[in-house]
C-alpha cells in the first residue's frame, strides 16, 4: 500500500512537471529534435494545440514524420519570432480554423522571414504549415509564392509547380481568342 501510494505521488508530480514545462519537443522525419514554446505552438498551430490538449505530446520528441528537419526548423523559427513580435489582433484571429477572413498583408518581419528562404525551403514550409494547421504561416508563405507568380506566363507557372500542360492546342487557341486581353504577346 505504502509503495503504491508513493508511486502514485511520483506519477502525479511527473505529470505536473510535464504540464509545467513551457516547451514541447518536435521530431522531424529525419530524427532531429526541436524545442518550441508550448504557448506559441498551441496558439499558432491547430494541430499542435490539439496534441497538447489531448496529451499526445511526447517528451522525447513528438514525431512529425511528414516534415523534414529544414522545414521544421523554419516552423520553430517562425513560432519563436512570432512570440517575440507583438502579435496584432489580426494575426491571432486569423490563426483560428479555416481561413475565410479578409487577408492581412504580411508584417515586415514575416516578409523578411519568407524572403530569405530558398525556393525548395519555401515549398516545404508551405506544406508543413498546411499539415500543422498554421493558418497565418500558411497565409504568409502562400502570399510569398503568389507574389513570385506575378506576371509569370502559364509556362513559367507550370515550371515552378512542376505540373504538366494538359491543354490541347485547339483548346488553348479557343481560350486565346476569347480572352485576348489577357495575353501579353497578342
Amino acid at each position, binding site marked *: 500500500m505504502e509503495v503504491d501510494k508513493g508511486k502514485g505521488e511520483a506519477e502525479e508530480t511527473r505529470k505536473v512537471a510535464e504540464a509545467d514545462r513551457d516547451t514541447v519537443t518536435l521530431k522531424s522525419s529525419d530524427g532531429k529534435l526541436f524545442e518550441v514554446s508550448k504557448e506559441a505552438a498551441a496558439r499558432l498551430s491547430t494541430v499542435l494545440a490539439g496534441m497538447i490538449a489531448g496529451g499526445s505530446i511526447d517528451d522525447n520528441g513528438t514525431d512529425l514524420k511528414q516534415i523534414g528537419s529544414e522545414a521544421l526548423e523554419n516552423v520553430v523559427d517562425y513560432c519563436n519570432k512570432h512570440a517575440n513580435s507583438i502579435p496584432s489582433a489580426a494575426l491571432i484571429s486569423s490563426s483560428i480554423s479555416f*481561413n*475565410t*477572413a*479578409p*487577408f492581412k498583408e504580411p508584417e515586415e518581419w514575416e516578409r523578411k522571414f519568407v524572403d530569405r528562404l530558398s*525556393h*525548395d525551403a519555401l*515549398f516545404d514550409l*508551405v*506544406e508543413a504549415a*498546411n499539415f500543422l494547421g498554421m493558418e497565418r504561416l*500558411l*497565409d504568409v508563405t*502562400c*502570399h510569398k*509564392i*503568389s507574389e513570385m*507568380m*506575378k506576371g*509569370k*506566363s*502559364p509556362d513559367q*507557372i*507550370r*515550371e*515552378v*509547380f*512542376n*505540373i*504538366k*500542360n*494538359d*491543354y*490541347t492546342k*485547339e*483548346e*488553348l487557341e*479557343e*481560350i486565346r481568342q*476569347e*480572352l*485576348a*486581353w*489577357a*495575353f*501579353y504577346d497578342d
Partner: protein
Amino acid sequence: MDAPPLAAPPPLRVSPELPLEIVEDIFILVPPEDCAFLLRAALACKTWAHLFASRGFSRRYRQRHRGAAPLLGFLANLADTGGAARFIPATISGGGFRPFRADSHGYRAHDARYGRVLLSRVSVTSTTDTTSAQSIFLAVWVPITGEVWRLPPLLRHRPVRSWNAAVICDPFRVVVVGMDTRELFVYTYVPEAHAWFVFAAGKPVSDQLDGDVAGVLVSDALHFVLLKGTRILKYHLLTREVSTIRLPNRRRAYGPRITLMAMEDGRRLGFAEVCTVTNILRFMALNIGRHGETSWEMIRFIDLHDKLPAEAISPLGFLPRVVAVAEGVDVVFLKTADGLTLDLKSGKVTKIPMTNGFFDIIPYVSFYVPVLKAALVVPSGVGTSGGASTSGNNVQHVDHLG
C-alpha cells in the same frame, strides 16, 4: 509536350506537386486588381482551371478580398447605338479585363451588381398608345463568363408609364418596380421558377420613376429616384413595403440630376450631385431618426474647379453632372464636355476612353475569377484527339438576342 528532352535543365522542384488545397490557398491571395493573373494560372493546367471555376473558390476569393472588388469597366448606353450598351474596360492598355463581346446589341444597361448586368431591350416602337398591353424584355448578362439569361417577358395589360429595375444576388433575383395609371407594382423574377411573381401592388405615387438613374440596394431595400427629383421610392425586399423618402427640401423639382449611392458598406443611403451654380460636387447621406424621421447630411464636398481641367467647366459649355458612382471603389463618373472619372481616393481625374456620346453609365465592379469553358468541358474520350469541338454550346451570347 511530353517529357522534357534530356538536355533540358532539371525542374526547380522534383518533389510531388503540391496538394490542390495549397494551390487554392496560394491563388486565393492573388490581388483582385490583376485580372490576368488568375487567368494565366488557370491556363497552367485544367485541374487548376476547374479549381478556380468552382463555386467554393470564388466564394472564398470574395471573402478573402472583401470590399476590394475592382472597377473592371463600365457599361455605357451609347448615343450612336440608340441607347444600347457597350462594355468599356477600365484600363485601356495591357492586362485589363474585357468581355469577349462588348456590345449588347439592342439592349440597354440598367443596373449591375456582383458581376451581373441587367439589360432591357430598347423599345423599337415609340408610340405612346394608352390602351394597349406592354411587355418589358429583360436579360441578365455576366460579362466575365459571357453568359446571358433572357428573362420571360414581363407582360402588363395596361401601358406602363414608368419603371426601373435592379439585379440582386444571394439569392439572385431581378426586381422591377413600375407604375401605370392605376397602380404601382413590384415584380420579382425568380430564376428557379424562370417566372415573374407579383410581390407588391398599391396606389401609384404622384410622380414617375426615373428609369435613367440606377437604383441602389441599402439595408435590404431598393431605392429608386422619382422623376421630379424631390423624392426617392423605397421598396423593402423583406417586408415588401413601398414608401417614399423626401430629398432635401431646398431641391427644386426637376433640378440637377442626382445619383444614388450605397454608403458605409451598403448600410446607409446617400446621393451625389453637382451644384449648377458653384460646380461643387457634394455627397449627402441619409439619417434615420428613432421614429423613422429622415434628414440629410452633407458628408463631403469637392470643388470641381480644383479637380477638373478648366475647359471641362467653361461657363458657356456643358455643366458637369454626376452620371454614376461606382460602389465600393469610390470612383465618380462625371459628364462634362467629355466623360470623366474622378477617383475619390487619389483625387485623380481620367478621361473616359470613349469617342462617342453616351446617355448613362453603369459601373461594373466585380472580381474576376476565370471560367474557361474550353477547359471545363468534359472530354468525350480522354486521350483521343477530338478536342476541337469544345465551344460552349449551352451559353447564349448577347448578340444572339433581340
